[in-house]
């Protein structure tokens, strides 16, 4: 049986290569001194990064993306936290419908959502801008945030709330001193996820963009000019590093969540 174990490692490493080779290549070419993306590399350089920070339009689109991501992720997280608490703790009419509707953006293709939002905004006479992109991103990020916060609340011991109340805490106190502190890591995780969802998003942003482009929209527009290609690659590499650090933060948060159970259940 022993010699038959080789397919599994082979499969594993092939998968890893397929997943990460593109990213490695991206990193490598970000430091390539030539403007054409072919091996062998001409030489190593930090020129593109210098140029990157000197390109005002690019920095502006980066700022736009950060603004949109920050705004929409906060809106999505606040709505998701309220929604999750309502969903888990209270009985109300149309609860099933509520969760279905809230999770719908997960299943609707972004292009479809983008087109329908475009129609909506033009019908309402709202000019396209970063605000419209932000509103759209709040909708798109909401289900992710909702799922993350709900997952934490589902395991929440309802006796904790009752204990707080028997000790003299009204609902506002219970929320502030017991519920929110306990789900805080999940809220941060939801916020980070919502942030990346917005920061990456291209299809909707491309449809709803006004005069100010977000980073993905700007980068896409730059791809038409071959001289700009190395710049795009360098920017992509930077974004990747940023996203990776958010990912590391999420992994760390998940470990925090696992370590502090929401109920100090009897261990006897």
């Amino acid at each position, binding site marked *: 049986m022993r010699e038959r174990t080789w397919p599994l490692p082979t499969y594993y490493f092939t998968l890893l290569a397929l997943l990460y080779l593109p990213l490695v290549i991206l990193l490598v070419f970000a430091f390539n001194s030539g403007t054409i993306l072919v091996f062998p590399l001409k030489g190593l350089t930090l020129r593109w990064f210098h140029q990157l920070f000197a390109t005002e339009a690019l920095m502006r689109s980066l700022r736009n993306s950060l603004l949109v991501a920050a705004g929409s992720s906060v809106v999505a997280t606040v709505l998701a936290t309220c929604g999750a608490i309502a969903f888990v703790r209270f009985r109300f009419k149309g609860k099933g419908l509520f969760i279905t509707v809230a999770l719908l953006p997960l299943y609707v293709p972004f292009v479809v959502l983008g087109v329908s939002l475009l129609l909506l905004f033009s019908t309402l006479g709202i000019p396209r801008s970063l605000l419209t992109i932000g509103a759209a991103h709040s909708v798109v990020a909401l289900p992710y945030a909702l799922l993350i916060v709900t997952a934490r609340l589902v395991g929440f011991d309802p006796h904790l709330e009752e204990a707080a109340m028997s000790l003299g805490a009204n609902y506002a106190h219970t929320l502030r001193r017991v519920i929110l502190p306990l789900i805080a890591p999940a809220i941060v995780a939801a916020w980070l996820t919502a942030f990346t969802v917005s920061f990456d998003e291209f299809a909707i942003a491309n449809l709803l963009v006004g005069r100010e482009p977000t980073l993905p929209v700007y980068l896409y527009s730059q791809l038409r000019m071959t001289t700009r290609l190395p710049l795009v690659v360098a920017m992509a590499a930077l974004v990747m590093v940023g996203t990776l650090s958010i990912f590391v933060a999420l992994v760390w948060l998940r470990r925090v969540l696992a370590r*502090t159970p929401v109920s100090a259940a009897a261990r006897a």
Partner: protein
Amino acid sequence: MTASLRAVTKRFGDQLAVDAVTLAIAPGEFFSLLGPSGCGKTTTLRILAGFEAPDEGSVFLNGVEITARPAHRREIGMVFQNYALFPHLSVFENVAFPLRLRRTRPEEIRQRVAQALEMVRLPGLAGRMPAQLSGGQQQRVALARALVFRPSVVLLDEPLGALDLKLRKAMQLELKTLQREIGLTFVYVTHDQEEALTMSDRIAVMDRGSVLQVADPRTIYERPTSRFVADFIGVSNFLSGRVREAGAKAVIELDGGGVVWAERPAGVTTGQTVTVALRPERLRLERAPAEAIPGPEGGWNALPGVIRELVYTGSDTQYFVELGPSGTVMVRGPNDAPPDLRPRRGDSVWVRWEVGSTAILTA
């Protein structure tokens, strides 16, 4: 009365969880709600705590009606079965929680938390997190937290249920001692009849939403008023019969023949069908002939029978004695007889017990 319920009824859907329960709990009393799971004892406790609103009836605390008062304004302490300690707060902050809500001064908080932890014999652990404590320690923290704001009543919902047997026994005694020392009123929910008998000043036995009997442990055990209570608490033998005479003593003719004397409970009349309940440890086996055994005039009941089965349990032996057509009773006997005098299967014996140890059940 510290706390009382008047004709409280609670339904969940079409299920009657609590059925017209009326209880009055005296100050400083250790009061237990005892019954099998689903009997409504926990719902009754939750109505007292304010976590459930009764459909009918009223709740009183220190003479004031609190039926509509929300839980956080009732000043009633509660200890949950799973302790419900706040996992993100240290032991100190858990106990300080009710005091902080009441805006107690920091130095007083420190002092009272220390005092409460001392009371539950848990000093020196104030800095720990709940997850770092054993089940027994968590239980003590939960108790300290429920005591520290000096509530007029503390409710305990099977607080020892999650502990292992040895620790549970130790905690029973400790809880009882603590309750008596600080003179607080405890309302204690349990399905463990032994626990209720050990700790309580008074017990309310509940079944299917109703309170069947409220009395001190001795009365509950020795003078149960219903078959359910006699059966649920301890082990009982049941013999059915009819009341032949209802004087100061009641004389009962068993269905299978034989006559039993008993103290007559109020309301028992001649001709009534009753059940006689006998505790196995109050019964004795005798080998003597009938004339050697004192009769009802001497304060004793005696019925002849045959040992059909015996089970050695270590501390005693259980003898299953067939009393002719009247039925079989279990007798618990000591194991101190010399080998040749030990009762054996098939032996003809007399089962003898004091008239005062005979309980008459009408329900």
